[in-house]
Structures are given as C-alpha cells and as structure tokens.
C-alpha cells in the first residue's frame, strides 16, 4: 500500500509539473540542461536537509540499538559496561529459554502464556464494541455523549486508572468489602490468584479499550448503505438478519484492522498488569513478555532480556506478515 502511495505521488508530481509549464518541464524533458540540473540539485539538498533530523534520529536512536540488541543476545552484558567488552556466551541465553530444563524457560513461557491470556480482552472488545457501535449509530438523543463517555477510560493515564482499580480489587479493597457486606464469607483474590489476575486484568483492558473499538466501528458503519438495508427490509429480513448479513460483513475490514493492531499491541502489554499488580504478580502470574524483558533489564542481564525481546518480536513479525499477505490478497480481489 505504501509503495503505491509513493508511485502515485511521483506520477502526481510529474503530472502537475506538466500543468504549470515553465522550469519543471525543462527539467523533465531535458535532465542534462545545466539550469534544471542545478535546480534538481538544490531540491535534493533541501529535501535531505528537511529529513536529516529523521535520518540522524533513525541511525542513532533506532539503528544502533537495533544492532546492539541483536548482538546482545550472544553476550553476557550487564548494561553497565560496554557491550563489546562483555564476555561472549554464544547460545547460552537461547538455551536457557528454549531447552525444557533451561534456567529461564519456565518463567519465559509462563510470561508468553500470560501475555496470551491478557489478549482474551481483544475478541471481547471487538464483539462488545460491535454491539455498542450499532447501538450508538442509531438516530436518537444522546449518542454523541455516549461515544465520548465510553472512550474516556481510553485517554486517561494508565497509572491513575490502574491505581484506582488496584484499590477497588485488592483483597481488602472496596469490591470485596461490598461482597462481604452483602453476605459473602470471604473476599475473592482478584489480584493474587491466577484466575483472579487473568479476570481482573482482562476486565480492565476491556473497560479501557472498548470505546476505541466502538468508535472505529461507528466510522466503518458509515459505509453501510441505507438503500441496501431498506431493500432487505422490503424483502422481509428481520433486524437480526440485517445486522448479521449486511452490517457485519461491511465491517470486516475494520474488524481485521482492529484485530491485527490490537494483537500486536496486546503482545507488547506491560503497563496495565505491571501497575495494577505492583510488579509481576503472585508467582509471576501477572508477568508479560515485556515485563520479563524489563525484569531482566533491571536485574542487569541484558543478554537474556534481549533474547526474550527478540522471541516476542519474531511473533509480532509473523502477525505483521499475515496482515500484509491478507491486505495484498484483499487489494488484489478489489
């Protein structure tokens, strides 16, 4: 898709240069002409000048760290001394994760498992958001206000939100106090038991994320033609059939987009469980893949942390590749 954009621009630029006539046309038709050559040279200079901060930033703050993290996987790097000065340990960190008796295997795959458990919120957001969007797309009073209200948790600082949730859900917190006052024998371990953590973190994520899905669907719904729905009604289709057979298919591209971007985001989950649980949870039941990386960064084992990060990155690349393939298929079909 991006490639197409660039080609379009070039074509556009060429076309509009034809329109205006004068200097640019000379440059097009006679590239060796000295004046137009100078102009082109100047434009190249200016162009590179304008993008130079981006290029420098890319080299220093992305490319160098990128290469270093690739190398770090094979070093015993503490993050204090230089990487090159550190001891080369070969595949030690890989073995510690990938061998079943590896020292960090249990913890790492538990973290990956937790990450996937915390992705359960994604399909829930997508389904719930669909029905909310249909409801908020009705011609009735107050829909604007609802759209705003449901999105509020999405913009608020995750720290403030997670601290509130912690105080509501902790063992002697507001929710359990209420349950006990209503007759429960003891409180639920929302933030300590495995099930409690999975439930509470997912609930927090749905609460925080459903408004975004809803807004995206509402935008997608603008492409559903009212005529088509009218026609279906005349044919005697009921509301549910119309919803499932006309509205839902119209939203497939939105659903796909939300699912892929949501999955990529979800695989990189860190903030919500880390702040809500004040760390990695009981027996690491709240530790995600990125938490694992952060933990071993903190512990001064940058090599292990880098391997953990790259295994995660590999999963994300697979998701991205599937998305690109599907996008290509779709644009070919159209």
């Amino acid at each position, binding site marked *: 898709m991006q*490639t197409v954009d660039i080609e379009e621009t070039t074509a556009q630029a060429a076309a*509009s*240069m034809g329109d*205006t006539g004068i200097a640019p046309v000379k440059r097009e038709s006679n590239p060796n002409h000295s004046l137009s050559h100078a102009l082109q040279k100047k434009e*190249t200079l*200016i*162009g*590179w000048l304008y*993008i130079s*901060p*981006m290029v420098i930033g*890319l080299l220093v*703050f*992305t490319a*160098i*760290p*990128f290469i*270093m993290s690739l190398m770090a996987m094979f070093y015993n790097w503490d*993050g204090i001394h230089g*990487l090159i000065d550190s001891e080369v340990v070969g595949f030690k960190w890989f073995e510690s994760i990938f061998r079943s008796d590896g020292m960090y295997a249990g913890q790492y795959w538990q973290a990956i498992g937790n990450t996937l458990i915390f992705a359960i919120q994604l399909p829930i957001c997508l389904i719930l958001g669909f029905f909310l969007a249909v*409801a908020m797309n*009705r*011609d009735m009073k107050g829909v604007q206000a*609802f759209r705003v*209200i*449901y999105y509020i*948790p*999405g*913009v*608020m*600082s*995750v*720290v*403030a939100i997670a*601290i*509130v949730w912690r105080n*509501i859900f902790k063992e*002697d917190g*507001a929710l359990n106090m209420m349950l006990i006052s209503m007759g429960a024998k003891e409180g639920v371990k929302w933030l300590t038991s495995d099930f409690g953590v999975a439930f509470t973190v997912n609930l927090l994520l749905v*609460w925080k994320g459903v*408004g975004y899905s809803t*807004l*995206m669907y*509402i*935008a*997608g*719904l*603008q492409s559903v033609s009212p005529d088509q729905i009218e026609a279906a*009604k005349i044919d005697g289709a009921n509301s549910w059939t119309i919803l499932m057979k006309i509205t839902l298919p119209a939203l497939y591209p939105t659903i796909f*987009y939300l699912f892929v971007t949501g999955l990529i*985001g979800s695989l*990189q989950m860190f*903030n919500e469980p880390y*702040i809500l649980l*004040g760390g990695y949870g009981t027996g690491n039941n709240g530790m995600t893949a990125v938490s694992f990386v952060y933990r071993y*960064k903190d512990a001064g084992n*940058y090599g292990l942390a880098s391997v953990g*990060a790259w295994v995660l990155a590999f999963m994300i*690349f697979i998701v*991205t590749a599937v998305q690109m393939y599907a996008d290509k298929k779709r644009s070919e079909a159209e």
Partner: protein
Amino acid sequence: MNDIMENTAPVPEEALTSETPAPAAPAKKPVLSSKQIVNIIVTVVLCLGSVIMLFPFIWMVLATLKPHTEVYSTFFPHTWTVDAYKDMWESADYLMKGGMIRGFGNSFLTTVPVVIVQIIVSAFAAYAFAKLRFVGKNVIFLVLLATMMIPFAVIMLPQAWLYGQMHLTQGPLAVIIPKFFGSIGTVFFLRQFFYSIPDSITEAARLDGAGYTKTFISILFPLVMPAVATQAILSFIGNWNDFLGPLLFIDDKNWYTLPLLVNSLGGDAGTTEIPSVLAASLVSLIPIIIVFAAFQKKIIGSIVFSAVKG
C-alpha cells in the same frame, strides 16, 4: 506504545456526527412506535454501561474525600474531608523534593517541548516526502516505515544504555532529546495532508521567488494547521501518559514525571495513605481532563478517520 499515538490519521468530522437516516415513519401512529421503544431500551442499556465506564472515576473522587478508615467500607463518605489533598503534598514531597509541583513541572518539561519540536521536525520531513523530488526519498521513507514495525521491547535496552552513556538518564533529557528527531507516525499522517495540496500552489509561490523554506512556512504549514493541531493534541496526551519510557530512561527520582511519581506513591502506600495517593492520581489527570474536554471532537474524529482509511 500508546493507543492514541498509534491510531492516528486525518479527520472528517462528518463521519462522527452523521447518523443513520431514520427509516420511513410507519403509516399508523401508535403511542410509541417500535423504533421509539427500541430507542428507550438502547438508551437505558447504554446508560447502565456509562455508569460502569465512569464508576472507577466516581469512586476515586469520592475516596479522596473520605478519611482513610472509610475508603473501602463506604461508597459515599460519612465524614467529608479534604485531608487527602493536604497529605498528598507531604507524601509526594517526601518521595521527591518539590513534591507534586515538581512532578507537574517535570511532566510539562518532558511533554510540551517534545510536542512542539517533534511536530515541527516531522512537518518539515512530511513536506519533503510529499512535495520535493530528491534522490533516495522513497528508499528512506520505506526504511522509516519499516522501523515502525520494530517492537519497542527490542530496542529499549540498548537505548537505555546509550542514553546512560550520553549522560541523559540523570535528568529528564533521555525522554526529551530522542523525540526531537521527529516521529515517523506524525510524518506519515501529515504527508497525506501535504499530498492533498495542489502542486500549483507551491509552484506559484516559488515562481514568485519564495524559497522552499519560505514557501513551506508561509503557505503550506498554515494549510495543514488543523492536522498539525490534531497531532499535537494526541502527542500531548500520549507523552503525558507515557509510563514505560520514563520508567526506563529516568534514573533520578527528582526528575520523575507525574505517572512515575504517582506509581511510586501508590507502591509505597500504607492503608492510611490511600486517599492521598488517589488524590495525587486524580490531580495528575487534570491536564488530560482539560485537553480531552476541550478537544474531544478532534480527538475522537482523528481515531474515526483511521477507520475510514483502513
């Protein structure tokens, strides 16, 4: 990293405001049409949902107005008190010299300059990518796009080390300086807007003798100002709320931004301090609440646009 930052694109506000046209009115008119009945049911359900969406915020506000003994046991305070807001200053002061005021200062320092410089740098690059013809343009643009796919987890460790070597982590600079070099997401977003400006406008300006920079500043930049404003708002919210970046790159507690400060307060808090921690959380949200209230249409519109595009 941040929902808002990731999902941005230009803004047609009609996508937001337009609603499905009402179906033709039924021939006979009962007291309530079936459509009205459904509307009432839907409104009631959405209202109940709204209560859930707002409940944690309401609970938070009420909790800050209670003595600590009541925080968990009551919903409405029996005894109303503003002690939490007084204690908040002290406990923050204990953690970091200057307390909440310093936290606000740090947050503004790591947000406002970043928003301004990042937008300007990105706008220049977006203009170059959209309107100028130069060798290597497409290659660089594709490389920049490709870097968006690199997960932050991969590069964050060497970045932390690198910033340490540059002596940026002792102050707030490690979360400021790197962002001065532009944001590829913003470039991508603004580039679309520069495309939509006819080349004839820039050509005309240039024929009048204006240089590239003058053309950009006096003609093109004002034309994309609405898009720039949207990006600035989203960038402000994203940077203000950022947690992992400051957590990794700010070593000195005195330079903690509000999210880090509030998180530390929450982490150390005993039961007696809960109301003041919640008060600090609430106060830390005020700038976001103001920005969201003032610009909610723009913010929501920008999200909706990416769906229209996608």
